[in-house]
């Protein structure tokens, strides 16, 4: 059992969805980012997605683009983000942590070395936004050899045949993109997400997390009724953007994360989750 599967199994027993916050590693600087990261489990984060900043985040909207730029200006590099995970793991051995980003920095680091180093640092899963199933073997296989899951995406444009192909070698959980678009811009329609999740559940027993358009506690609650995980990124990194100091950034992010976690827990406790 891995930290990811343990967590989803436990939440299934509790009858609730996971709250999964995303922050960019090193945003706005390494120290503040570590403080935010360390605070998130206490806010009710069940899993954490930590962004690996990239100069050209072409699947991201303005909020995550800006957070990526802030992090890079603050000196973030892939090795430093891995260091951040190591520091986090000194105090937290149980919250699953997933690194999310674009392939080029991983390619530059070297996929085999990357898989070894992140596994040693205590990373549980990887999300590479621009590695579709056609290209993901180069990372999926070395990661799997280290016991690290490569999380795959399903989107509103994914057809039936493609869905089958995606779930075939998927592990950890599936990430359903609630809107066709970049992160943090459009708003999902609940009925569309419900129909899509039903379709995914018919094809796989893996947990399904939903992201890309969830900003408010109300929206988090709506998704928690449908899915096994609720991912919020842009709204959280916007709090970093708005903050005037490192201290106020930590405070603003943790306040919103707490509200989102509570909304996720309150709603999903009322219903059964779908995966078995």
């Amino acid at each position: 059992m891995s930290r990811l599967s343990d967590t989803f199994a436990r939440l299934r027993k509790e009858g609730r969805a996971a709250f999964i916050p995303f922050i960019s590693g090193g945003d706005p600087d390494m120290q503040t980012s570590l403080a935010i990261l360390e605070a998130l489990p206490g806010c009710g984060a069940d899993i954490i997605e930590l962004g690996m900043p990239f100069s050209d985040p072409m699947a991201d909207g303005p909020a995550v683009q800006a957070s990526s730029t802030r992090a890079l200006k603050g000196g973030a590099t892939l090795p430093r983000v891995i260091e951040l995970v190591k520091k986090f793991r000194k105090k937290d051995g149980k919250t699953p942590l997933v690194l999310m980003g674009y392939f080029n920095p991983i390619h530059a680091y070297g996929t085999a070395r990357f898989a070894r180093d992140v596994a040693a640092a205590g990373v549980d899963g990887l999300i590479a936004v621009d590695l579709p199933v056609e290209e993901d073997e180069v990372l999926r296989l070395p990661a799997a050899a280290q016991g690290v899951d490569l999380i795959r995406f399903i989107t509103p444009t994914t057809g039936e045949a493609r869905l089958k192909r995606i779930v075939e070698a998927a592990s950890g959980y599936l990430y359903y993109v609630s809107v066709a678009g970049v992160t943090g811009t459009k708003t999902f329609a609940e009925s569309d997400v419900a129909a899509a999740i039903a379709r995914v559940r018919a094809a796989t027993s893996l947990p399904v997390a939903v992201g890309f358009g969830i900003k408010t506690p109300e929206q988090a609650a709506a998704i928690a009724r449908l899915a096994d995980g609720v991912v919020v990124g842009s709204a959280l990194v916007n709090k970093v953007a708005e903050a005037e100091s490192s201290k106020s950034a930590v405070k603003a992010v943790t306040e919103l994360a707490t509200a989102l976690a509570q909304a996720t827990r309150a709603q999903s406790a009322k219903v059964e989750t779908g995966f078995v």
Partner: protein
Amino acid sequence: MSLANSLRSGPDAGGHFGAYGGRFVAETLMPLILELEAAYEASKQDAAFQAELSDLLKYYAGRESPLYFAQRLTAHLGGAKIYLKREDLNHTGAHKINNTLGQILLARRMGKTRIIAETGAGSHGVATATVAARFGLPCTVYMGEVDMERQKPNVFRMRLLGAEVKPVASGSRTLKDATNEALRDWVANVADTFYIIGSVVGPHPYPAMVRDFQAVIGNETRAQMLEREGRLPDLVTACVGGGSNAIGMFHPFLDDAGVEIHGVEAAGDGVDTERHAATISKGTPGVLHGSRSYLLQDSDGQVMEAHSISAGLDYPGTGPEHSWLKDIGRAKYFAVTDREALEAFVLLSKLEGIIPALESAHAVAHVCKIAGQMKRDQIIAVCLSGRGDKDIFSVAEHLGEKL
């Protein structure tokens, strides 16, 4: 064309040229590029599609373009005979129209009702806005703010043609960032939008498809050279940013072992400075905008800003097929500085009465370096990819003149 023992048979089914190319895009876009690939493959076998494209190339774009013997430039350099493939004489003033006509016909075939594009120098933006006007489709062109400033005439042209030009303020505010923004638009408007990529970059099938639409350059050059000289040239050369005019020129010659192939990159202030766009000469393999290719990047895999006097070459990536041709040694890649390109810009204007695009001036500058070392019975064919009217303001500024 799929030939055994041919260098012209790539890419493979996954869009790979050796270790380069591929499809590195967000999952939301994958079904779209698979659909595009199927539509493109079907169009190759569709006689009506090919006939419509040929008709447009001839009567709308003005093909074929002449292969012109540059007598005075040849005499000036005192070596090989120099022929210019006059893509500058096409409608819209550059080779870009060859590709945009092909892609807009595909867009129509696929039932798409909205066109988007990225542009650097503005040539591709103008060529896209032109065909969108011709077919009555709304068009949005993404352009970096820096490029909008140095290519004002093209911004006005696009607007005149009815396109919306959206300034891009992120990153280096040039072609790379305009491409990111176009990809973001596409992923948010998947149902109705066709993305006309302007170079042999992006995810498969774009590098192969754009090359095929641009191969008309090399195919014509080959036939024209055989007619004029009764033989093939000793050397073909072209400028390389993303590399569409170059691959269009080179591809039909890849299996002709006697034809040397030189790509010319932008060296900016010099390849040993921090300000250049010589991706193939100085970069390392990486993944950007959907494919694996040579890339200007730091040791952390962050993409670096490219620098060139020419907005059309100011790109930190390049086409995957060029990366492959470099690695297998079939093509050689050189770099020309801003200063050398400016000198060639002026030289060609004065000797031949042809004002080249700054992009094309890089290829001319390379010819200026090598023609004198070649024999008088040898032949160079250089792709003059565009005309320089768009560049007169920035050239005047560099030459210290105020317009």
